[in-house]
């Protein structure tokens, strides 16, 4: 391929940012774009040209990729940007007030003034401390400051001075007893491998290496572990199918692109127990025969990035990653972190592949499925963070003991993210089968003096549950029978004062914003859905038949789960809560 490059020339700073990528290939495109955006704050034509020359990528292609991600700017932007979360949980907790104060003191969203600009952001994944803001300062190195909970004043302060390089407070757990998945969070130093090992860390990998690949596959299958990312696919089956593929190499991808509004459980695991994920991925790699793994981490998680980077470096140094892991001859494995750049769709299992490979994060058509043709066209396992962190538990407790937790069809412990109008928002770990009422009680219920209006279960792609349905046991099968879903574990509580219409509009805006645009039902359907909801809220017009028809076709004919679920929550609000009439 002969490249026709742009005439534009890169600045010295841009050159320095790209220098480290010499000899790289297209799969370094996303990291290279990050490097320049981090250093300078935006991507000029000169910088893009240099990246294209270095990685041998056509400029139009690189532009198509860069313009796909919301964290990259392709027009000059100030070095300091404050991202204010206006998504579901933050909205319920006063994000609009933060925006109003910022507008008054810093100017309109997106307008540069005095070296700073602020932007409305989709869910930042710190819903337990809503409303949240994330300040970003370009430079060498770039710094970030998480302000959560944010007030108008603290957000303005974050805009007015350089970020304090604080990546937020460590995760706080309200729950103390009976924890498995979360037992180290807030207790063990997440930067210390010795702390991890002193609390049972790496016993599971030792067990796995002793048992052999086939036995690990059997154990995970027998444990009945279902994927925790939302689709609830049996993990053992996915692993065994990949392990059995003759084509090589095999890849392992950890989906840490937790972008479902109201979801923050994976962040809590990554920040509180990063070594557990590294160990779990190493076990998975051993079982499926992978030498290379990727953690696709959302770009908005600076604390998780810092701690995971540290964990990988320490593990490499101590022989827990690399060649002949734990002295097991012939077993080599390493992990690379890929930072996302602000695109919810990249949590879709095949969009992740495109993103890692340096293409637009658009989902691929299935079949073929990832177990057969995944990352770089090779057999690949994609697992969510929470799913993987269950694996060491299974190997240390044994499949039978693990299986005894929860129900027959939904085995094990489950994390739920409580947010919204709830007394003690946070991540809670309960066995599958706990009722919604019990879970709500753990978090203290709605604030005193208020009453429960509804619960959004499963996230923006999930559905609403009414106050009279609180005895719903939280299992995959009971949720399905009740025509709802546990999704990624979102339990977003709305009280009697919540603005349900505005909340639904935000859900519709979210899907319109986050559609990749590849297929017609989703690209245009999400726009028509939002327009119809705006009309109902403004003029009270009857839009339910139109919403149903468009929603049904989005569900039936979209390429991927984003479009297929973009109408779920709104449909359930109409059917179960009597909304939009």
């Amino acid at each position, binding site marked *: 391929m002969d490249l026709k490059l742009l005439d534009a020339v890169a600045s010295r700073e841009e050159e320095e940012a790209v220098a480290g990528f010499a000899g790289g290939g297209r799969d370094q495109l996303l990291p290279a774009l990050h490097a320049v955006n981090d250093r300078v704050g935006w991507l000029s034509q000169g910088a893009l040209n240099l990246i294209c020359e270095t990685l041998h990528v056509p400029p139009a292609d690189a532009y198509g990729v860069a313009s796909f991600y919301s964290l990259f700017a392709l027009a000059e932007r100030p070095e300091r940007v404050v991202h204010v979360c206006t998504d579901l949980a933050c909205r319920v907790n006063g994000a609009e007030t933060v925006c109003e104060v910022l507008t008054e003191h810093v100017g309109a969203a997106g307008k540069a003034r005095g070296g700073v600009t602020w932007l409305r952001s989709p869910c930042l994944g710190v819903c337990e401390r809503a409303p949240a803001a994330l300040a970003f300062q370009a430079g060498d190195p770039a710094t970030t400051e998480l302000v959560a909970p944010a007030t108008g004043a603290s957000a303005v302060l974050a805009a007015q001075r350089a970020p304090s390089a604080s990546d937020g407070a460590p995760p706080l757990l309200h729950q103390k007893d009976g924890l498995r998945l979360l037992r180290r969070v807030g207790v063990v130093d997440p930067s210390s491998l010795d702390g991890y090992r002193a609390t049972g860390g790496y016993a599971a990998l030792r067990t796995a290496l002793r048992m052999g690949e086939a036995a690990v596959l059997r154990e995970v299958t027998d444990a009945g572990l279902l994927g925790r990312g939302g689709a609830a696919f049996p993990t053992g089956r996915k692993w065994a199918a990949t392990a059995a593929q003759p084509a090589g190499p095999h890849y392992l991808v950890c989906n840490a692109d937790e972008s479902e509004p109201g979801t923050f459980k994976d962040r809590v695991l990554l920040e509180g127990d990063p070594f557990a994920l590294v160990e779990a991925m190493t076990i998975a790699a051993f079982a499926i025969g992978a030498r290379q793994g990727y953690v696709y981490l959302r770009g908005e998680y600076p604390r998780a990035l810092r701690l995971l980077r540290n964990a990988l470096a320490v593990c490499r140094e101590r022989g827990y990653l690399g060649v002949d892991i734990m002295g097991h001859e012939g077993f080599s494995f390493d992990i690379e972190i890929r930072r996302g750049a602000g695109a919810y769709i990249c949590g879709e299992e095949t969009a992740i592949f495109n993103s890692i490979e340096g293409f637009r994060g658009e989902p691929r*058509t299935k079949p073929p499925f990832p177990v057969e043709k995944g990352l770089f066209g090779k057999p690949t396992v994609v697992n969510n963070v929470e799913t993987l962190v269950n694996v060491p538990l299974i190997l240390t407790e044994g499949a039978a003991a693990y299986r005894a937790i929860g129900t027959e069809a939904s085995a094990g412990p489950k994390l739920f993210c409580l947010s919204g109008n709830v007394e003690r928002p946070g991540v809670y770990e309960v066995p599958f089968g706990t009722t919604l009422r019990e879970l709500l009680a753990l978090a203290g219920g709605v604030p005193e003096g208020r009453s429960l209006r509804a619960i959004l279960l499963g996230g923006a792609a999930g559905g609403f549950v009414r106050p009279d349905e609180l005895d719903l046991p939280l299992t995959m099968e009971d949720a399905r029978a009740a025509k709802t879903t546990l999704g990624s574990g979102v339990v977003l509580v709305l009280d009697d004062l919540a603005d349900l219409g505005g909340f639904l509009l935000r859900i519709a805006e979210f899907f319109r914003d986050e559609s990749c645009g590849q297929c017609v039902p989703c690209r245009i359907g999400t726009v*028509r859905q939002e327009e119809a909801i705006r009309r109902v809220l403004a003029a009270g017009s009857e839009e339910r038949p139109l919403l149903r028809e468009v929603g049904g076709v989005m569900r039936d004919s979209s390429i991927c789960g984003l479009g297929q679920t973009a109408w779920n929550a709104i449909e359930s609000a109409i059917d179960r809560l009597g909304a939009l009439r």
Partner: protein
Amino acid sequence: MTIVDIGIPKRLVEFTVDGAPVRVPEGSTILDACTAAGKEIPTLCYGDTLEPANACRVCMVEVEGSRTLVPSCSRKAEPGMVVHTDSERTRISRKVVLELLGSATDLSTTPDVDRWMAETGAEPSRFGPDAATVAQPAIVDNELYVRDYEKCILCYKCVDACGEQWQNSFAITVAGRGFDARISTEFSNPLPDSACVYCGNCVEVCPTGALSFKREYDKREDGTWDESRQTATTTVCTFCGVGCNLTLHVQDNEIVKVTSPHESSVTHGNLCIKGRFGWQHVQNR
């Protein structure tokens, strides 16, 4: 003597379409099978010379056992599959997808779409007068072809033809995302500054007229474009020795457009700048 490549022998796959048994060679898509059986499934983004992008979702069919509808252009037929091409679900989906497209895009130069709209009862206007559209002025930045993106349905065919599937020029891409997704050069720079080599293969595959030859665009603008007065004659290009087939479209004794037969084993519908655009000398009288 003509040598016909019959390829490796293939097994036949048996499945059911609309209640009737169908046998097709292994690897055929549902759309292939239906086309062979004389059944029309509407499609916009399907390109007979390109890998299916299955982005338009007009050709969706119902496959028993599948949670969602499936794109017939890319789904391979499997033994025992039970397919419905004209069920209630497929009819509603086709109607709404056409309505969504018609409400956002100018489909006035898209062949067959009016008929499909009528057949399905699609009414794009029901989304109201304020429905967002992709309306924008046409881009005329060179003398060879025009980009009129308010007609673009984002079928990806031009990107695929320009990129690794045929031309390897990579001059255009899909940029942005969601409703803001659009075909673009890098930083929306003018086409003459891009990697475009003016092969016109993107125009050849465009299904809606969003890309059109300048001559055709001008004649449509001044109202003199009339396909009923045109003849098409296939001949061999004389510029080099490759022997590409050219189809000359002639109106009123004047060449107005050059295409290439998609079934040609030399070009598969593709040409270079000379074959596609180098015809003015023929009519310098």
